[in-house]
């Protein structure tokens, strides 16, 4: 139906006085992909979206849509449309008038307009609701109307500002699946901003992790989750156990890292003597000695039964590790277990500074 545009963000910086909300952000989005910008509040993600939509001028840098510079184009003329966090549906118009608004602004009227409005409403799962008033819609329905209103004018890039933030958890998960389906059927380039890492992982082709106005890490969700590039993305995206260490000799593709649990040979690169951290996901720790690397013997401090597994806190030496053990057999508090891990599941992080997490 519509082909998405290539979006290029070149060295975007936004300063408010002395503070930089965004600092030299570079990003290239391939046509038709679903990009999720993930970051905690204050990371600059909303500012980035506002710059993409043309509502905020950047201090430095350029925005290109299909290689055309749109940095100085007003929102009126930009080939982008935004689904706002508060939806901003016009309360004095019906659903059909809301969805048809952009079409009439682009000179599309009459039968073509009503046909496209009907198609857009069908796409978002609200066929036949054109005559309803905005006040009579539920939160989820408003979200869908906002989406229909934005996609009906076939933008080259669709911007979504925490679009699911106002919905309850169940509806949010349901809308995630629908958003993803709609994006695939339209083929439009989506840029979606959120602080919900689960939402990001379930929707994104590419996740961009933003922190303090800088891109911390970017890549496909599985790469980001399994091989995070920094301590921040390792801990912001799900849980990670971090173990401090000092890099030793490199042997081929592997580096020996000295930690309080002993010396481990893990994949990655680090100069000799560098302070590093090893990140291990709770589900990768095993309570047996079958893994390549034996971490040690520890005592179970606490346990929650989650269903698919039991989540345990295990104390080894003076450090506490979180691990997901199989649901059976039940572990008891105070029980002594051996903990091991496969070398492939250990991620070497360069910035093993002493900063608090």
């Amino acid at each position, binding site marked *: 139906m519509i082909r998405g545009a290539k979006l290029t963000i070149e060295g975007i910086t936004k300063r408010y006085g002395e503070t930089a909300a965004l600092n030299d952000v570079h990003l290239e989005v391939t046509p038709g992909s679903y990009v999720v910008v993930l970051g905690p509040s204050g990371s600059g993600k909303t500012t980035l979206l506002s710059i993409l*939509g*043309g*509502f905020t001028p950047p201090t430095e840098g350029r925005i290109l849509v299909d290689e055309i510079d749109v940095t100085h184009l*007003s*929102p*009126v*003329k930009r080939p*982008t*449309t*935004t689904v*706002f966090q*508060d939806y*901003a*549906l*016009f*309360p*004095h118009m019906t659903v059909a008038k809301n969805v048809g*608004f*952009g079409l009439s*602004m*682009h000179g599309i009227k009459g039968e073509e307009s009503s046909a496209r409005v009907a198609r857009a409403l069908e796409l978002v799962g609200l066929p036949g609701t054109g005559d309803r008033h905005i006040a009579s819609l539920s939160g989820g329905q408003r979200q869908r109307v906002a989406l229909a*209103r*934005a996609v009906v*004018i076939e933008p080259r890039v669709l911007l979504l500002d925490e679009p699911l933030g106002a919905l309850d958890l169940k509806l949010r998960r349901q809308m995630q699946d629908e958003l993803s389906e709609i994006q695939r059927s339209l083929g439009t380039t989506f840029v979606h901003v959120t602080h919900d890492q689960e939402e990001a992982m379930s929707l994104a082709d590419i996740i961009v992790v933003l922190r303090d106005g800088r891109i911390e890490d970017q890549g496909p969700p599985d790469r980001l989750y399994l091989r995070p590039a920094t301590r921040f993305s390792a801990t912001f995206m799900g849980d990670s156990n971090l173990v401090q260490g000092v890099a030793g000799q490199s042997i081929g593709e592997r580096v020996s890292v000295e930690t309080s649990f002993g010396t481990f040979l893990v994949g990655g690169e680090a100069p000799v003597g560098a302070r590093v951290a090893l990140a291990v996901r709770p589900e990768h720790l095993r309570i047996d000695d079958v893994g390549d690397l034996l971490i040690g013997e520890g005592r179970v401090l606490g346990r929650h039964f989650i269903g698919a597994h039991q989540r345990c806190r295990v104390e080894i030496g003076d450090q506490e590790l979180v691990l997901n053990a199989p649901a059976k057999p039940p572990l008891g508090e105070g029980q002594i277990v051996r903990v091991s891990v496969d070398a492939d599941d250990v991620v070497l992080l360069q910035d093993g500074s002493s900063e608090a997490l």
Partner: protein
Amino acid sequence: MKQLGSILRFSYVAAIFGFILLPVLSLVLFSFQDGAVALPPLRGLSFRWYEALFADGRMMAALRNSVVVGLVSAALCTVLGFFAAYGLARYRPKGAQLLRGYLIAPLGVSYLVIGLGLSLTFSELSIGRSLVTVTIGHVVINLPLAFAIILSQMSEQQESYERAARDLGARESRVLSLITVPMLAPGLLAAFLLSFTLSWDEFVIALLLTRFDVTLPVEIWSALRTGLNPKTNAAGTIVFGLSIGMLIVTYAFIRRRLERRR
């Protein structure tokens, strides 16, 4: 003790309403007097004074003048008040607070002072007194109120609707006509109705700024100088009735607006 308190409170309220409403009520009542003098006792009801009023060319001309001055000045107040409020709320110029105070300031000045000031200014500029000058005078006194009403109805929420409209490709003129004005309609209407009502029965400025063509309150005043007459009571009743009617309409609109917000 408690009973005494409520009796006192009741009498106080009754006294207030008595003092305010009794003269008006007697005016209304004696406009229907079936006799030549507007004095008690009431000699039966008739519409003869209303017939006389409607046959009176000067009174009718003054009534038309009042309606025209009211409509034009209220329209100007609403348009100017809207643009002032929109500019202040959306563009937030430097010194917005000061500007707002400056725009509302005329509310605190007596009509006599404003009327004298305008009268002096117009004669300085060799502009003759006419219905145009009264209209300007009424814009001066009613603009602050229209501005304040409209500004109070502007919200950040509306700003986000305007932003969404621009994002969907609406030029500034379309944003104003399709989003801003329709959403502010109740406030604009309230400002218009109130400006009209206040212009309709305003006397001091109208007296100072008119000459040959006068508004209804001024015409009634000149009629009163030749003595009390049931015809002037009928004219006064018309002025009062329309004012009350407009106030009720305005109130109903504001109330509906508030209820819809809840």
